[in-house]
């Protein structure tokens, strides 16, 4: 069943990996005691492991090929199952309702810890949806998204510290601050293209973090701001566990609002302009779309969500310092968008749940956790480069009284 040729290939691969990992995996030196430890057993594990993995990968690829071949033969490129569900209201509505009910009863059946990390994951859903407007829909590669997140978090921390403003008052303010900063930063740089925009936004992200780190009088520097109050509920004093549950419901509500708003934005005149901008800027301009304005709106709307979630972040963690807003954070949010499926709301939700919950559930792997995380990121991209769920195609229904014909898409 499995060709000998492939076995030989896997054997060669295992030798290659044994060679590749030789210095790092096998030799361990102690430069002070001047001793060398040769860990030959590691070489054996690597060789054996890569042999097995390469065979498994080959089997997978062969089957995939066979399946693809069969599909072509049948000449039916069936719409993916998930897409179909998302498209048909009679599936989508009950499913959404079920998910909503599940989300609402979640804290009653799971521990505070589970609720807590679910809250984190849902916050990243919102962040992902926000960045999705910028990267997925409008096609602007933003590597400094975390800057806006930081603005939101520090808005709450500082406004609360100095002026005693409460969570609910700052929630919109944080979002607006971030959106304003988005306009401010976006204005000079949005004419840059693709990867140049990427590095400039990365730079902005770092600049914001460095300012927070160095400007002690303003932000209290790296020691951060502690004892930020959790959101109040009509002045009630809440225990930690019920506080967590409360924030959880706030975030659930925020997720619902975000999905609603983002969905409507995507299916609007503005959303179409963003998509068009992603596909062809010059044609876009020739069709009368104001490139700068449209991009700025996307950029600042994305920033708005980040600021919003930032406020919640500060309230949930009760502590902020610049260490939470590094480039890696931006990279994770970007990964959520790409992994989930650019431009796809459902995809981004899945992406966030997987990427944020995965490290938590990988805790069992303890120190191998981030290794696994990085590896899984690569494997997922290689096997599903379009993301988990690519965007659902829209179709439009025509009203009778406006056009003479009616077409059912």
């Amino acid at each position, binding site marked *: 069943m499995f060709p000998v040729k492939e076995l030989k290939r896997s054997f060669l691969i295992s030798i290659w990996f044994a060679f590749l990992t030789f210095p790092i995996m096998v030799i361990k030196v102690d430069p002070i005691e001047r001793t060398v430890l040769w860990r030959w057993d590691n070489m054996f594990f690597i060789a054996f492991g890569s042999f097995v993995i390469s065979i498994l990968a080959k089997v997978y690829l062969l089957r995939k090929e066979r399946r693809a071949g069969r599909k072509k033969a049948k000449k039916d490129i069936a719409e993916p199952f998930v897409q179909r569900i998302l498209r048909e209201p009679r599936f989508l509505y009950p499913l959404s309702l079920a998910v909503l009910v599940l989300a609402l009863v979640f804290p009653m059946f799971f521990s505070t810890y589970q609720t807590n990390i679910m809250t984190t994951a849902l916050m990243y859903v919102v962040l992902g949806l926000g960045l999705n407007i910028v990267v997925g829909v409008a096609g602007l590669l933003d590597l400094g998204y975390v800057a806006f997140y930081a603005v939101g978090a520090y808005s709450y921390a500082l406004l609360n510290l100095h002026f005693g403003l409460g969570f609910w008052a700052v929630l919109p303010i944080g979002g607006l601050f971030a959106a304003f900063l988005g306009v401010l930063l976006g204005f000079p740089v949005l004419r840059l293209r693709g990867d140049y925009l990427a590095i400039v936004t990365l730079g902005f992200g770092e600049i914001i973090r460095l300012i927070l780190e160095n400007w002690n009088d303003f932000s209290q520097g790296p020691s951060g701001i502690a004892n930020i109050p959790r959101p109040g509920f009509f002045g009630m004093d809440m225990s930690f566990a019920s506080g967590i549950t409360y924030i959880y419901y706030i975030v659930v509500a925020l997720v619902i609002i975000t999905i609603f708003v983002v969905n409507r934005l995507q299916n609007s*005149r*503005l959303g179409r302009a963003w998509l068009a901008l992603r596909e062809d800027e010059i044609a876009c301009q020739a069709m009368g*779309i*104001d490139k700068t304005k449209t991009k700025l*709106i996307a950029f600042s709307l994305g920033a708005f969500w980040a600021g919003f979630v930032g406020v919640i972040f500060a309230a949930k963690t009760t502590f902020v310092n610049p260490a939470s807003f590094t480039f890696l954070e931006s990279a994770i949010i970007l990964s959520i968008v790409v992994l989930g499926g650019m431009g796809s709301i459902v995809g981004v939700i899945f992406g966030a749940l997987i990427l944020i919950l995965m490290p938590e559930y990988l805790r069992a792997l303890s120190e191998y956790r981030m290794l696994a995380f990085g590896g899984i990121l690569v494997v997922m991209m290689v096997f599903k480069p379009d993301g988990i769920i690519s965007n659902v195609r829209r*179709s*439009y229904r*025509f*009203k009778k009284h406006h056009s003479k014909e009616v077409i059912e898409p």
Partner: protein
Amino acid sequence: MSKAILNVKGLTKNFGGIKAIDKVDLDIHPGEIVALIGPNGAGKTTFFNCLTGIYTPSEGDITLRNPESGKETRLNGMKPNKITEQGMARTFQNIRLFPTMSVLENVMIGRHCRTKALIFGAVFRNPATRREEEEIIATSYDILKKVGLHKQVDEEARNLSYGAQRRLEIGRALATEPFLLLLDEPAAGMNPKETETLVTLIREICKEGHSILLIEHDMKLVMSLSDRIFVMDYGKKIAQGTPEEVRSNPAVIKAYLGEDVDA
């Protein structure tokens, strides 16, 4: 004759030291179909790009006059989208559709500059926005019917045939409600049957009150369609006039015989 809707005077475009366009004058009157011809590399597309704001002209004046309101606008240095708003739209030589958007959406994009809804409207879908959206869809659909693509509304633009893509581009440009339409080689790569459909389409569009400026290599098409023809070579205008006048112009013959004759 009524006043020109487009008046170009002494248009010059330098790239480094090279004059891609050298003091070209051109005018278009309401209801006219005007062709711009010339050998490859004569500067025709550059001329289009200057008109539509993709390049900023080095010298000269471009003035657009709205035939209804009579408002005159100087286009030099204006952004492409502003120019489109003024009532001049274009198609591209190497088709620039939005490939993964549907046929209908492509045309709907054309409606962008004639509609208003922004964030508020998108989120709250107030009655005005809903009406506007319905209008966009209805108008776009009507335009698609005109260009003969109404059976493929939900198809992705990239899956259309070549001729259909060209027609879609025209439809998209029409959606911006231009009084002047610039077509950059609309018949390139089309088979005779498709070309024939195109000619009918262009005539129809013209009849509806759009003036047309087109770049084209297909001489049969140019001669049968155009009211007037401008000829460019090496960035300069070498001739202008009715098809008959241009056909017999020695400078034109020389320019075309000097190299490959396309038609």
